[in-house]
C-alpha cells in the first residue's frame, strides 16, 4: 500500500507540471496587455512599461515560466498582480474557509445519501421511490446559484433564521456554524440528490444478485440482507461515484462562496479572474488540481478499506 501511495504521489508531480504549463501558456497567448488592463486605458505608456517590467511581462514565455517554476519549487507561487502580495500567502489565508465548507458538505452529502438511496432501492418503483427520484431530479435541475439565492430569500430574508452572507469564524466558534448552515445546505443537498440517483441504481443491481436471493431464501431479516450484505457491496461504486463528484463539488463551492460572500479561495478565484490577476488565478487552479488528485487517492485508499480483497502493490 505504501509503495502504491508513493507512486500515486509521484504521478502528481508531472500532472501539476503539465497543468501549470498549460495555464501559463493560456495566460501568455491571451490577447490584450495585462499591464494596460490593470492600469486602465488612460495610463501613460511609461507607467505601463514599468509595470510590464515589474511583472516580467516583457520577457519571453520560456523565461517567465522557468522563473515561475523555480519559485514554485520553493513554495513561491508568485505575486498577485493586483495586490502585490504573495499568492501562496493569500491562498493559505483563505483556504481554511473553503476546506471547512467543502468538507462539511462532502461528509454530510455522502452520509445522508446512503439511507436515501437504500430506501429508494428497497422500495423500488413504489410511490416512495418515485417521490425520492423525482425530488432528486428536481433538485439537480436547479442551478446552484439560484438555489442559493432562493434559500437566502426564504430563510435569511423572510424568516431571518440565519445570516445572509459572510463568515464570522471557524465552525466550532459560537457564531461560526450559523454562517455555515446556508451555504453548506445548498452544497450538501445538491450532492445528496446527485449521489442518491446513482447509488440507488448500484444498490438495485446488487439486490438482484444471486447471493442476495440466497440470503432472502435463507430467511434472513430484511435489515440484515440490506444493511449487512447489499450495502457493503454497494459501497465501492458509491465511493467511486462520490470521488467523481468532487470536481463538481469544487466548482459548486466557487459559485456558492460568491453567492454567500464566503471568504474562501473560490471567491478569491472569481475576484482574481474578474480583475485579470492571473498569477493568483493560476495558483488557485493548481490548488484545486491537487485537491482533486488527493481526493482520488483517498478514494482508492477507501476501496481497500471497504473491500478486503483489494490489495495495492
Amino acid at each position, binding site marked *: 500500500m505504501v509503495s502504491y501511495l508513493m507512486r500515486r504521489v509521484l504521478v502528481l508531480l508531472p500532472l501539476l507540471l503539465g497543468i501549470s504549463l498549460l495555464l501559463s501558456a493560456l495566460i501568455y497567448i491571451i490577447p490584450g496587455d495585462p499591464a494596460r488592463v490593470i492600469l486602465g486605458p488612460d495610463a501613460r505608456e511609461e507607467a505601463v512599461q514599468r509595470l510590464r517590467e515589474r511583472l516580467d511581462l516583457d520577457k519571453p514565455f520560456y523565461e517567465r515560466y522557468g522563473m515561475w517554476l523555480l519559485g514554485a519549487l520553493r513554495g513561491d507561487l508568485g505575486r498577485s498582480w493586483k495586490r502585490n502580495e504573495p499568492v501562496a500567502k493569500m491562498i493559505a489565508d483563505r483556504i481554511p474557509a473553503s476546506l471547512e465548507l467543502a468538507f462539511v458538505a462532502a461528509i454530510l452529502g455522502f452520509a445522508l445519501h446512503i439511507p436515501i438511496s437504500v430506501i429508494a432501492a428497497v422500495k423500488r418503483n413504489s410511490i416512495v421511490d418515485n417521490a425520492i427520484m423525482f425530488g432528486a431530479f428536481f433538485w439537480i435541475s436547479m442551478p*446552484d*446559484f439560484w438555489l442559493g439565492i432562493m434559500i437566502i430569500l426564504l430563510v435569511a430574508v423572510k424568516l431571518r433564521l440565519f445570516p445572509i452572507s459572510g463568515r464570522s469564524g471557524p465552525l466550532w466558534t459560537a457564531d461560526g456554524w450559523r454562517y455555515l448552515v446556508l451555504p453548506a445546505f445548498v452544497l450538501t443537498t445538491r450532492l445528496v440528490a446527485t449521489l442518491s440517483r446513482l447509488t440507488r441504481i448500484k444498490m438495485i443491481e446488487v439486490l438482484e444478485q444471486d447471493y442476495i436471493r440466497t440470503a432472502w431464501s435463507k430467511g434472513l431479516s430484511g435489515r440484515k440482507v440490506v444493511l449487512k450484505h447489499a450495502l457493503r457491496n454497494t459501497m465501492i461504486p458509491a465511493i467511486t461515484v462520490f470521488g467523481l463528484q468532487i470536481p463538481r463539488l469544487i*466548482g459548486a463551492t466557487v459559485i456558492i462562496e460568491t453567492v454567500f460572500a464566503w471568504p474562501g479561495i473560490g471567491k478569491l478565484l472569481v475576484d482574481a479572474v474578474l480583475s485579470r490577476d492571473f498569477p493568483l488565478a493560476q495558483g488557485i487552479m493548481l490548488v484545486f488540481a491537487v485537491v482533486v488528485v488527493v481526493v482520488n487517492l483517498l478514494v482508492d485508499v477507501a476501496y481497500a478499506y471497504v473491500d478486503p480483497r483489494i490489495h495495492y502493490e
Partner: protein
Amino acid sequence: MRSRVVRSLLKNRIAMGGGAIVICYVMLAIIGPYIVPYDPLQQNYSELLVAPSRAHWMGTDTYGRDVLSRVVYGTRYALLVGVAAVTIQTLVGVTLGLIAGYCGGIVDTIIMRFTDMMLAIPTLVLALVIAGLLGAGLRNVIIAIGMVGWREYTRLIRGEVLSLKQESYIEAARAIGVPGVRIVLHHILPNVISTLAVYVTLCIPSAIIWAAALSYLGLGAQPPTPEWGAMLADGRQILRQAWWVGTFPGLGIMLMVLGFNFFGDGLTYALNPKLTDSGL
C-alpha cells in the same frame, strides 16, 4: 432498432413530458420575441421595481424593464449557448476520442494523458478562467464551455471505439485495405451515434447552467442583454426589495434543465434496454 427506441420513448410519460417542455422552450425562443408585451430593453423610470401585477406579470427590474419580456427573450440566449457550446464540445471531443481509440499507441497515450490532466481541473473552474482570459461576452462563454466540456466526450468515445475496433467487420475492412479514415467515418462513427445522442442531450442542460453561472459571475452576457444568469446577478443585489427579479429567471433555467434531464434520462433507457429501471 429505431422503432423500438421510439416506442420505448413514447411509453415513458416522464420522458415525453421532458420532451414537451423542451419543445415549448424552443417554440418560445422562436415566436416569443414577437409576442412579448414589452420591449425587453426598454427602460421605464416610472415603473421601477414594480411587483408582479396584471400589467407586468413578473414585475419590473431596477430600470423599469418588464421581467417577463426579458425572461422570454432570455430563452434564445440559453438555447443558443447550450447548443453552440455542446456542438464545440462534441466536435472536439469526438474527433479526439476517435483518433485516440482507433490509432492507439503513442497517439492514444498523448491524447488521454492530456485529457486526464485537463480532467484534474474542475469544469466550472477551468471555464471561469478561460472565459476570464478571453474577456466577458456570450461568445467567449460559448468558447470557454466548449473548450472544457470535450474531455468527457473524448473518454466516452474512445471507450466505444476500443470495443468496436475488435468487431469482425472492422477487421474485415482493414483486411481488404479500406483506409483508416474511411473505417472510422463510415463504420465506427455511425455505431457510436446512439451513445453520443444520449450524452449530448444530458450535456446541454449542464452547458446552460454553466453559461448562466459565468454570466452570474459577470463574465457572460453584458448589460443590457436579457440573459438569465446576468438577470440573476441583478436580482441577488436587490433580494430584499424585489424577490421577483431573481426568482423568475432561475425558474426559467430550472424548467428548461428539468425538461432536458427528463428527456435525456428516457432516451438513455430507450437506447439501453438492459437498464430496465427508469428511476422515475
